[in-house]
């Protein structure tokens, strides 16, 4: 497959607001992205606008405040997907096509039961929650993420293990919770922990470097198969060096730290 043949569905509903950056990210790595409204997949539009999820190679859930974050962040988007195209989404994931959820997108993947996916590819009910930050506030600042994945996640194949990336966070509900006391151990065993927040010294993050109080400083996880990644920070906001806060002060790379997530998944597909 050529890069230009990789069709990416950047899925949105009302209240999604990071679809342009997500679209641009896939464009920059040579893919063929399209911003698609959920109604285009569920057929509630005129024929020329109808789309089929099966025709896409990658599904991406951008950030934002889908449906106004009412009920719970991501819950309404997830419920609408589940009721209208749940089986197709399950099939998409089972065929190991890549699915990315950033920020609100991560919240949607958790509400949809695709993450953490410990016992089933797509559970009927959420098995985890992205819950209100410890500070009870919207936390918005650059964060440092260390790639802790041992090789399962297809979105970090081009990131050396242990490498720290600067990727900004902007969320009010990012604390990953489960009622299973062995939750973090199980994620670790399965190689599902992808990114952890770290402090300026590269060690364990304290607030504000861990913006939400997530256990074990978890910022992003993948499913047991490694093809679904959800992360709270926004890689699509640092595609070039110019959106890094320190770009005039010795930032060496031409590329922004977030682009590698998109390069990695393309490398896996081509």
């Amino acid at each position, binding site marked *: 497959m050529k890069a230009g043949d990789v069709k990416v569905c950047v899925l949105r509903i009302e209240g999604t607001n990071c679809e342009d950056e997500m679209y641009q990210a896939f464009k920059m790595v040579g893919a063929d992205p399209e911003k698609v409204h959920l109604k285009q997949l569920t057929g509630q539009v005129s024929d020329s606008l109808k789309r089929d999820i099966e025709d896409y190679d990658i599904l991406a859930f951008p950030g934002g405040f889908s449906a106004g974050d009412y009920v*719970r962040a991501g819950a309404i988007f997830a419920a609408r997907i589940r009721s209208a195209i749940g089986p197709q989404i399950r099939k998409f994931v089972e065929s190991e096509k890549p699915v990315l959820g950033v920020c609100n997108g991560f919240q949607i993947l958790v509400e949809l039961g695709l993450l953490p996916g410990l016992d089933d590819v797509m559970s009927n009910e959420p098995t985890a929650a992205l*819950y209100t930050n410890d500070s009870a506030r919207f936390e918005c600042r650059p964060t440092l993420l260390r790639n802790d994945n041992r090789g399962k996640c297809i979105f970090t194949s081009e990131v050396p293990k242990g490498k720290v990336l600067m990727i900004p966070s902007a969320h009010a509900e990012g604390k990953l919770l*489960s009622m299973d006391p062995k939750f973090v151990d199980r994620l670790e065993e399965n190689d599902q922990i992808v990114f952890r927040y770290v402090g300026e010294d590269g060690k364990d993050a304290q607030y504000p470097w861990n913006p939400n109080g997530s256990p074990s400083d978890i910022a992003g996880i993948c499913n047991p198969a490694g093809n679904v990644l959800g992360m709270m920070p926004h890689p699509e906001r640092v595609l070039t060096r110019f959106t890094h806060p320190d770009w005039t002060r010795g930032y060496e790379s031409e590329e922004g730290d977030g682009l590698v997530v998109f390069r990695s998944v393309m490398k896996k597909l081509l």
Partner: protein
Amino acid sequence: MARIEIRIELKKGVADPEGKNTMKTLESLGFEGVKSVSSVKVFDMELDMSEEDAKKAGEEMCRKLLANPVIQNYKVIVR
């Protein structure tokens, strides 16, 4: 016509930053003796069906949308 109230509460053991912050603020405003504050979400609805069916429908709504069973409990009260 049935009227139901759905209460979504946090499970025991789940931290409640909104409740905690509210309590701190109330204390700073001079309210004394505030022992605890919990945030609760309430949905009030009218349904065109019997009370029994409305209760069942309310519970189904909680399972499908209104509550996340990992962190929340729900209660459907017929009014």
